[in-house]
């Protein structure tokens, strides 16, 4: 990848980060404060979620360690493997926290966050398609950067679906 492409990527990433930050501050938090407020039960749920995510990450790393010791060659670049493990931990945390009502704080506007996740999902799908067209899914026999974008897209789609399921459940309960 050329220097200009790396610079363009970093610039795009920075812009997206700033955009998300601005949207969160302006629209997604009802009181326009950066800090999200959680009540005591939500804090407890979040802590439990972090614990389960840690165990998922630990278990995943243990599995990779065992595979390495057994000389099993994975068809994934090492950074894709690490990213997959982080994504796994995120999936565990987000799913648990959303389903137990600990993910969104008291001052969060859930609809705005839903929109952010949906936009990010579309953006990451587009990036994944661009990278697959440009570099292919497999480089030198291993899934590389294209795989990372696919995982990113999967994460955003997963979060959007879990939020939708939770909202349906909420409506039923009410």
């Amino acid at each position, binding site marked *: 990848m050329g220097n200009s492409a790396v610079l363009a990527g970093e610039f795009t990433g920075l812009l997206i980060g700033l955009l998300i930050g601005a949207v969160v501050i302006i629209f997604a938090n009802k009181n326009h404060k950066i800090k999200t407020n959680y009540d*005591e*039960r939500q804090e407890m749920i979040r802590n439990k979620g972090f614990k389960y995510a840690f165990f998922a990450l630990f278990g995943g790393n243990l599995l990779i360690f065992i595979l390495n010791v057994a000389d099993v060659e994975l068809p994934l670049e090492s950074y894709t493997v690490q990213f997959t493990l982080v994504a796994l931990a995120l999936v565990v945390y987000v799913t648990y926290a959303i389903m137990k*009502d600990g993910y969104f704080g008291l001052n969060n506007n859930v609809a705005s966050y839903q929109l952010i996740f949906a936009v990010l999902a579309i953006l990451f799908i587009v990036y994944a398609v661009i990278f697959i067209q440009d570099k292919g899914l497999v480089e030198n026999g291993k899934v590389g950067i294209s795989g990372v974008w696919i995982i990113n897209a999967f994460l955003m789609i997963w979060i959007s679906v879990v939020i939708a399921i939770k909202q349906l459940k909420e409506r039923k309960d009410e």
Partner: protein
Amino acid sequence: MKNLRLKAARAGLDLSQEDLAGRVGVSRQTISAIEKGDYNPTINLCVAICKVLGKTLDELFWEE
């Protein structure tokens, strides 16, 4: 164990779970979890709920 006394006291003041949650400063789901008996609130939250509903801790949270 379900906290029916809390539910009754809230309904007595014609407050929804959302209303009570807003006045106490917690989420609606937290009030729902307390009423269902799925969550044991801290003493601080119990006191806050009692103040809003005009009840004592014994009346709302003491198990006979």
